[in-house]
């Protein structure tokens, strides 16, 4: 089995889906000859040609909107937003259109589009190349939001997203692109959308998180194990709609829950996870649910010390788990 980086796993999933189904095509800025600014589409233009790996004009609402039209026609478009931060002009298309097409037409039309976007900080991207955008879209029934935490998950979930009959917002942490490597099967496999996964089994504290923070949580858990603190890690994988059953089970198991996101704290995905736990797990809890998140500043600053201070990391997670364990 080959060891792939996160971005190579994304690339492999795209290549295999383009090979598998001629209705699949890619559209976005610089996705053609350039192969994408992060090289997600590297080599695909050469293999599949201009028609299926389409460089678009620099206009995000059209990237989403044209993709939505093609999806309603019956194609399987994979639209790339160059940075998640630049998805804002396309919000009307994604929320008012893609998310509502099936419901508003009473199941007459559907919109099987995948919209990929690199999110997240830690690469000196400043305010507009660093944001976490999932919460903006996380109360829009009709939409699914998938945020894989590893190369293996990225490949399997991206294939599922492309094959899904509804719109999927597929958010890839840009720092994970080259930071994370693991063995990824070369054959075809898919992973279920809408299901969380236990990434580590433990008894003392449960960490519920998603995306790159899963990696940091694993690092923290490994360190704490040497101190005798056993950590359960639940990776949400799909942050909307949430896998309620998995959240309830993971929270009930240890009774001490740490929720982690890189996003700003107020109004983040974590609030909804906490609400599910408070509705269902009151008598199983041994400590108040704790949140670890970015501060409520508009976004991540550029200057290195400020960016570092903004970000969740393994040390901060370790400290938070220890506090809960000692509660």
């Amino acid at each position: 089995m080959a060891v792939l980086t996160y971005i190579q796993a994304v690339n492999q999933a795209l290549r295999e889906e383009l090979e598998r189904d001629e209705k699949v095509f890619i559209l976005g800025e610089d996705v053609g000859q350039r192969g994408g600014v992060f090289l997600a589409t590297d080599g695909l233009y050469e293999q599949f040609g201009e028609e299926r790996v389409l460089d678009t004009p620099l206009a995000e609402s059209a990237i989403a909107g044209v993709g939505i039209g093609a999806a309603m026609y019956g194609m399987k478009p994979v639209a790339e937003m160059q940075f998640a931060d630049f998805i804002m002009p396309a919000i009307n298309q994604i929320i008012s259109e893609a998310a509502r097409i099936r419901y508003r037409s009473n199941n007459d039309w559907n919109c099987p589009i995948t919209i990929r976007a690199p999110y997240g900080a830690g690469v000196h991207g400043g305010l507009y190349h660093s944001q976490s955008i999932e919460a903006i879209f996380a109360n829009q029934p009709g939409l699914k939001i998938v945020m894989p935490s590893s190369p293996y998950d990225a490949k399997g979930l991206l294939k599922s997203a492309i094959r899904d009959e509804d719109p999927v917002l597929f958010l890839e942490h840009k720092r994970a692109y080259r930071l994370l490597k693991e063995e990824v099967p070369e054959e075809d496999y898919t992973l279920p959308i809408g299901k969380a996964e236990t990434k580590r089994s433990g008894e003392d504290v449960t960490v519920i998180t998603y995306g790159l923070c899963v990696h940091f949580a694993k690092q923290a858990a490994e360190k704490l194990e040497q101190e005798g603190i056993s950590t359960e890690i639940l990776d949400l994988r799909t942050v909307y709609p949430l896998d309620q059953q998995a959240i309830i089970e993971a929270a009930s198991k240890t009774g001490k829950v740490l929720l982690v996101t890189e996003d700003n704290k107020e109004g983040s995905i974590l609030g909804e996870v906490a609400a599910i736990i408070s509705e269902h797990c009151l008598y199983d809890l041994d400590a108040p649910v704790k949140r670890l998140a970015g501060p409520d500043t508009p976004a991540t600053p550029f200057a290195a010390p400020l960016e570092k201070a903004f970000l969740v990391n393994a040390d901060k997670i370790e400290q938070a788990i220890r506090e809960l364990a000692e509660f």
Partner: protein
Amino acid sequence: MVNQTKQAELSKDTLVAMYQEMLLARRIDERMWLLNRAGSIPFVVSCQGQEVAQIAASYALNKDEDFVLPYYRDLGVVLHFGMTVKEVFLQAYGKAEDPNSGGRQMPSHYGQKKNRIVTGSSPVTTQVPHAAGFALASKMEKRNVVSFVTLGEGSSNQGDFHEGLNFAAVHKLPMIVMVENNKYAISVPLSRQVACENISDRAIGYGIPGVTVDGNDALEIYRVVKEAHERALNGEGPTLIETISYRLTPHSSDDDDMTYRTKDEVADHRTLDGIAQFRDMLIEQGYLTEAEDQEIEEKIKQEINEATDYAENAPYAGVSTLTDHVYGQGGE
């Protein structure tokens, strides 16, 4: 007056059929207002004043292959593409059998897949990029299919108008964009919407042809849309067409247009009604008699009466269906 030099292209039967469809759209719309004012239906947004442009353009399309992405005034377009009178009334009443949305959307938010009428929303102009998407997909599949998208002149200020047209122009997509300029965007007149003389002037920015045509001149509209259709199928890209008409009703049943325009202004435009002009032309040409016209009116009235009765008595969707179809059933 209608330009009569270009009639040769269309047979007598076609011209009479066009007239019937224009009149049908108008009479349906008039009935909707009666039903609204009687408290039977909550909302109307009208096609009145734009039927000639809608029907003439539709006749220039291939109704068995092309996709249409109408906006909320396009009753004429959806009737031509196969929505029945009964279905139109079912959506006005918001009943379960409404093929557009099963009563989920407000009236005039059209969509019917079997007739290639693409579902639309209320935020204006989002349909222009969708039309480019349909055109892109049909080009990729090497089908001889055109997407036809309409909007109002106010909507041409939206970013999606620019983004969608530019995309279609760059990739030479088979698309026709028809702006139905009815001079008002709710209360704001054309002069406060755009500073250019014609909406079609915007075409130059996309490197495509832009044409402005009298919205009451059915034959000229037919010719212009037909030409755009040929360009599209020849791989020459999109065309921007602007039809000039006048909105004969308030914006919607919730609007009071006397707060921003005068009775005289509206009355003046009623005397120029395109449907009446078209009928007069047919009569002058000997294609239609007064008696035949009366027969058409009677037939339409009966059809509308039946459709109204049916829709009024049809059931609403059961409340147990409220959460149906948020998502599909799974993967492929």
